[in-house]
């Protein structure tokens, strides 16, 4: 504002025009991006209300002729979804909470403590990320059988409470918080654990929110692990329910889309809630002052 007020009339006009053009293109690109992102969701919603013969058409049809609201009811009843929902929520929430505790403690140690073999240990941790999960599925299954954990929540939760990726992410974030803050706090008589709780974690909200969101989504979407480790419907989760609608010879897309809609709703809500955290609490702002 201050700058534009000082400009002569004609220059100001030019400035405004270029400002407007820039904005116009910026918004055009953003809107186009948003539309591309949102299109699959809109398609999912509209397909969930279609009759089967309206789904795969030559031309994309965005609105169903008559919304088939009963698709939701049929999809909901096709598999024991209320049980699946309860399980998915419980497992995802518990995994998320325990993981945040473990990851922040481990990441704190890797970021701020000095101990023998720290770097070697960290590299070893990272090394485990290189092994694809499928390779470990059968050995892990045998371990779970030996623990007697098949068809229990233990198998669905405990192996997933430690994530190297989260530790890595949090460690990187913790390392970006200046070490001087750590030293100053220790000089003032703050314990290491207290420092983590009262300083580090509140400053790391965005990273914590990211870690939590990843965990929740990962756990919510987990399919093969759940299927392999459980036998009874009372232990299974939503993704297992979604497979009911797809077979080798065809798929009931309208029901699948209806089920996908109610399956992803909680994730969407969680994202909207945590999204604030991404904007808030940026660590460095507290120090610039």
């Amino acid at each position: 504002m201050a700058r534009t007020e000082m400009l002569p009339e004609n220059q100001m006009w030019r400035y405004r025009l270029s400002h407007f053009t820039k904005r116009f293109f910026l918004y055009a690109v953003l809107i186009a991006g948003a539309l591309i992102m949102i299109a699959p969701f809109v398609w999912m919603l509209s397909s969930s209300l279609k009759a089967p013969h309206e789904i795969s058409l030559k031309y994309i049809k965005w609105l169903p002729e008559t919304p088939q609201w009963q698709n939701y009811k049929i999809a909901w009843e096709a598999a024991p979804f209320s049980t699946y929902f309860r399980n998915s929520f419980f497992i995802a929430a518990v995994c998320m909470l325990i993981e945040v505790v473990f990851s922040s403690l481990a990441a704190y140690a890797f970021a701020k403590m000095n101990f023998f073999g720290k770097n070697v240990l960290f590299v070893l941790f990272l090394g485990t990320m290189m092994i694809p999960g499928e390779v470990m599925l059968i050995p892990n299954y045998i371990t779970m059988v030996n623990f007697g954990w098949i068809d229990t929540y233990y198998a669905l939760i405990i192996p997933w409470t430690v994530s190297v990726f989260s530790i890595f992410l949090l460690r990187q974030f913790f390392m970006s918080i200046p070490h001087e803050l750590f030293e100053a706090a220790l000089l003032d008589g703050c314990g290491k654990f207290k420092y983590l709780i009262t300083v580090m974690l509140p400053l790391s909200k965005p990273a914590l929110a990211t870690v939590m969101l990843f965990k929740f989504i990962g756990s919510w979407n987990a399919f093969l692990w759940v299927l392999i480790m459980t036998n009874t419907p009372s232990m299974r989760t939503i993704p297992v329910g979604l497979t009911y609608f797809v077979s080798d010879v065809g798929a009931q897309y309208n029901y699948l889309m209806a089920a996908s809609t109610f399956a992803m709703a909680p994730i969407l809500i969680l994202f909207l809630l945590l999204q604030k955290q991404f904007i808030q609490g940026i660590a460095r702002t507290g120090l610039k002052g």
Partner: protein
Amino acid sequence: MRSTKLVLLALVLCLAFSSSALAKVHITFWHAMGAELGEATEYLTQKFNEIQDEIFVEAIYQGRYSDLNTKLVASFSAGTSPTIAQVYENWTDAYYRYGVIDALEDYMDLTEEERNDYIEVFRHMNTWDGKLYTIPFNKSNWVMYYNKELIPEPPKTLEEFFQISKEVSEKTGGETKGFGIRPTLELFHAFLWLNGGDFFDEDLNVTFDGPEGKKALEQMIGMLEDGSALLIDGYEDGAFGDRMIAMYIGSSAGITYAENSVGGKFEFSTTPLPAGIRPGAPFMGTNIALFDSASEEEKLAAAKFVKWLTNAENTVYFATKTGYLPVTYSGLEHPEFKAWLEANPHKAAIANLEAFEYGYWQPKIAAWEECRGIIYEMVTKVFLGEDIDMALAEGRMLVEEAIDAMLSERF
């Protein structure tokens, strides 16, 4: 005093419960039947549990076929195999080599008549070592779906088929193409077979790269090039229902999906595949296998269940609910099945008795899972424009490697 009484009472109760539990043999049946197919499977299992009180069958849905296979393989090493499960023939071959399955026939106490009642082509598919190791359960055949409005008289030979496909495309100005091509292994196999070829000869030498294989690929590509066919991504029934294509080759088990996609917009029917140098009817679907980790008692109980599950009445129930085939001749002849066919003329090709005469199936060898992937990739490459000769030569090399690995490894 009182506490002693309580303890005694508890003991008596425990004994009572354990003896009643002992009375029933508990067997587990892992399957991959979701939605309506799952309902039919669950219904039959429950019915079995109700009509007798010696055996309790627990049917457990284990996801799609690939998930079921993963879980079965995991269960072998962990010792948690089910009593019985749905299996494809190539899995059976692998399990047979691992030594983890038992021949169901040994436990079923079949008379010669009962044994021969299983349709011959299915018996071939289920035989190892001269025994019915597995029992056919949900078998399907591949048929030609066609739009009756556009094609009143379906093609009987490959030549007629090419002709009609072209005519439909021309007549509709390309709005509706004659045929839908999804570059799958199954479609390639169909063209290969109808031209007189197959994937392997009897000694497992690769033959699909011969002149028949080349001709099959050329025919498919040719249909796309001259506009008589449409390349389809995804299930064909959707494009069929939207009149994008007038014919496609698909599983009989997919007929309910076709009915839904067409949604009464036009009349359609099914017919056997047109004959090339020779006729052909591809048979697919899974069978039931018995795992050797079960006790003798459980094995006998499972065999009883499988025998009951495939009796005429039940195989007909399953077939009419799902679009799969009855697995026995008595099922095909069953008045209920005949009545159902009469009421559903568009399903006639499903139970075309002639087709059973010239049925063919995918190789029932352990390495097939890997070979399938290689051949599928080869077909896809050709559709993406790779030279046919080069693709076939590469495919042959990779498949030979997979077969060699299977034969040399002692599993």
